[in-house]
């Protein structure tokens, strides 16, 4: 394997939400293939700073694929070409010498651009505020083992709970729907006995909130599942739909 490569970056630059924005081209030489994608951007930013230009703004924090802070569209794909990988965990060994990489922010009506590759994902927090929790006050919990949870249910709940809230599902969806994000939370909690009492109300509130925030509808395109860095399954969307319709038919929560 070649240890270092040359690549050309075409990066979206936008000074602020009000600015129109445009692509800028940056040739990069001798990029070690052991570098992560974000480290490659660090290298470019150091060079920009030295030459008196403004570095590229991009969100990131843990750089180990768990905080959900990073994300950009690379050659048309959220978090880049590798399956099940956040941008911070993507390494340059997956690219070839001479590649041209087009890097853009998440594009979605619900995620306005703040600067360059940084967007406002506050809408995702709003969906959680609408009902993504179990109502239990501190101190009032029963003994932990008094609520047995079948191993299979715990495993499935964990699969859903692995969502990192990065917003790639929304960016991937042609409709800009946040269905996979909401479904992961509804499903995680609905699968556990602790979460059942509020399951109906939770599903209704979160779906209604989502509709009011500028996210599009889900029309089963399944791009979200394909691009999710945590490989969250669209089976959770089916579960959310079941919870939602059951709630609409049978419960007094409306």
């Amino acid at each position, binding site marked *: 394997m070649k240890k270092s490569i040359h690549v050309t970056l075409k990066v979206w630059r936008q000074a602020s939400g009000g600015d129109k924005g445009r692509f800028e081209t940056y040739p990069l030489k001798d990029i070690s293939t052991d570098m992560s994608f974000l480290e490659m951007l660090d290298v470019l930013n150091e060079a920009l700073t030295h030459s008196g230009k403004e570095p590229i703004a991009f969100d990131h924090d843990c750089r*180990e694929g768990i905080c959900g802070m990073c994300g950009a569209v690379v050659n048309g794909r959220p978090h880049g070409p590798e399956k099940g990988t956040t941008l911070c965990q993507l390494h340059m060994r997956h690219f070839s010498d001479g590649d041209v990489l087009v890097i853009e922010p998440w594009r979605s009506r619900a995620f306005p651009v703040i600067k360059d590759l940084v967007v406002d994902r506050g809408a995702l927090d709003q969906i*959680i505020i609408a009902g993504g929790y179990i109502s239990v006050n*501190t101190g009032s*919990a029963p003994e932990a083992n008094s609520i047995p949870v079948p191993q299979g249910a715990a495993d499935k709940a964990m699969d859903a709970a692995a969502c990192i809230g990065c917003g790639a599902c929304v960016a991937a969806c042609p409709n800009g729907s946040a269905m996979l994000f909401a479904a992961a939370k509804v499903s995680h909690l609905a699968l556990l006995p602790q979460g059942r009492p509020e399951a109906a109300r939770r599903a209704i509130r979160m779906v209604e909130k989502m509709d009011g925030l500028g996210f599009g509808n889900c029309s089963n395109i399944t791009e979200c599942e394909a691009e999710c860095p945590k490989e969250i399954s669209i089976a959770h969307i089916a579960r959310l739909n079941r919870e939602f319709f059951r709630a609409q038919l049978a419960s007094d929560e409306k």
Partner: protein
Amino acid sequence: MELNAKIPEGPLPEKWDRHRFELKLVSPANKRKFDIIVVGTGLAGGSASAALAELGYNVKTFCIQDSPRRAHSIAAQGGINAAKNYTNEGDSIWRLFYDTIKGGDFRSREGNVYRLAQISNAIIDQCVAQGVPFAREYGGLLANRSFGGAQVSRTFYARGQTGQQLLLGAYSAMMRQVAAGRVRLFPRREMLDLVVIDGRARGIVTRNLLTGAMETHSAHAVVLATGGYGNVYFLSTNAMSSNVTAAYRCYKRGACFANPCFTQIHPTCIPVHGTYQSKLTLMSESLRNDGRVWVPVKAGDKRRPEEIPEAERDYYLERRYPSFGNLVPRDVASRAAKAQCDAGKGVGETGLAVYLDFRDAIRRDGRAVIEKKYGNLFQMYEKITGEDPYKTPMMIYPAVHYTMGGLWVDYNLMSTLDGLFVLGEANFSDHGANRLGASALMQGLADGYFIIPYTIGGYFAGTPLETVDGTHPAFGEAIESSRKRIDTLLAVDGRRTVDDFHRELGRIMWDYCGMSRNNEGLEKAKGMIRALRAEFRENVRVPGENETFNQSLERAGRVADFLEFAELMVTDALARQESCGGHFNEAYQTPDHEALRDDAHFCHVAAWEYQGEDREPVLHKEPLVFENVTLAQRSYK
């Protein structure tokens, strides 16, 4: 200044009960008259915000990220300890207490640690009720695994993402309070100063990271939960935005900083591989349950690991510590790895790595079992290194991971400044000179869910607090000095970037104030830090301006504080002329090269008080009193 830890009287098991009874209460109707600022939304800040709001207080919560769910607690992998004794191995509150005190090399308070162990069980109950999907046995009951420094399985876990799941639990509890109107959230804010009025913490100054606007917020008390300062080393397992600024500002406003030299170097991290590297990645300690650590017997052996026969491998932890084996505490495992590499037995391209090998576990249990336990960690390893740990041993090396030091707090978690409470990694209180695995999550949640809700009430009920708001001159002064610091940084327009300085500072700290320290090196480091700080002030280049989203400026402010704080760490390390836990001074070691404490002279907490720019801080000592355990040389043989 007299440090009073306010440890309640009475036998250890009764102290917390007695204290809770003696604390004055704020009546439910009066709670809504009190405003509380919480800075940070990790396990400590998130759980505190939720619990305080549930009680009826008005809470304003601040975080540096775009969403409170991204705080660095999210990256904790392995698990959380509790003394449930579900495994029937003889665990108890006493044993968890004892393991933690001993693991910390007898440099923490009995009263605090015992309370932590007492609370541990309620934390698990709370988290399960919130829907944290802990691992289960087939029968549906909770599963446990082992961690370093313990001979019982008491660690609860959610795959390799325990921190994430606990944090999302605390986050959702807090978001429920946002929905109820009891918590107001301020994301993308950085705390730049603490506002002290009449000797009491009454507010903060924040910078809005989107607009650069300086904002003031007043309250009746400030709760700081801003994590640790491991990023002073540049390379660490901490998230990129983890920093010391908020805590350091409080120190400069009069809060004492305790044991800053106590840092934890975690033994199982992915080794450094290039100069452009921005951070290090931890591989959970839980891997040491099944992985065996080894190096070649012969120095300089360059064969592939598979080609090295059994007889030519040295499983040095199992050899040196037969009873704990691969599960010795972190400080011991890290130093042992360094010793092997120093002796030329390190592996990999750089020679700065040892093997962590799953071959035997896979043979014994089958690949499926190992995959179920550690699948996501193996995957992460492969992503970063491009090697498959199912086929070839992992390579690991120690890296900076956690800081036991922090702002000094009393038993109520209040700092030396009235009204400033400090929780989680940001305080110094429970881990002594070395933290045991799976104890950080426990402490963060204990502080937030189960301690601060009571002790802050005691403070409010016993303290007359006048009304203040942002118009008080102290706020104006704090804004003014924050703005001046920023203007100064932007005005330098030098030739070196912020990262360049940060990397150099990290090198100095790693070389001279890292895993192994000596007086000569520490003295040298002090000079080097001063010189680097002086150069930073004259030669740093910070592009852009204040009034925009400016990540270079954010980093510049943090590195400026690290450049001052690093000297405090070195000063503390020089003052502590003994070895204990993660602080290893080469002059003080046993014949087998273990840390040698000096209980006659250093059985104390070192709390440093700021004296002003370019003046040596003053050291206050809080003696540690052990009435229930006997101080012993730690032995894991």
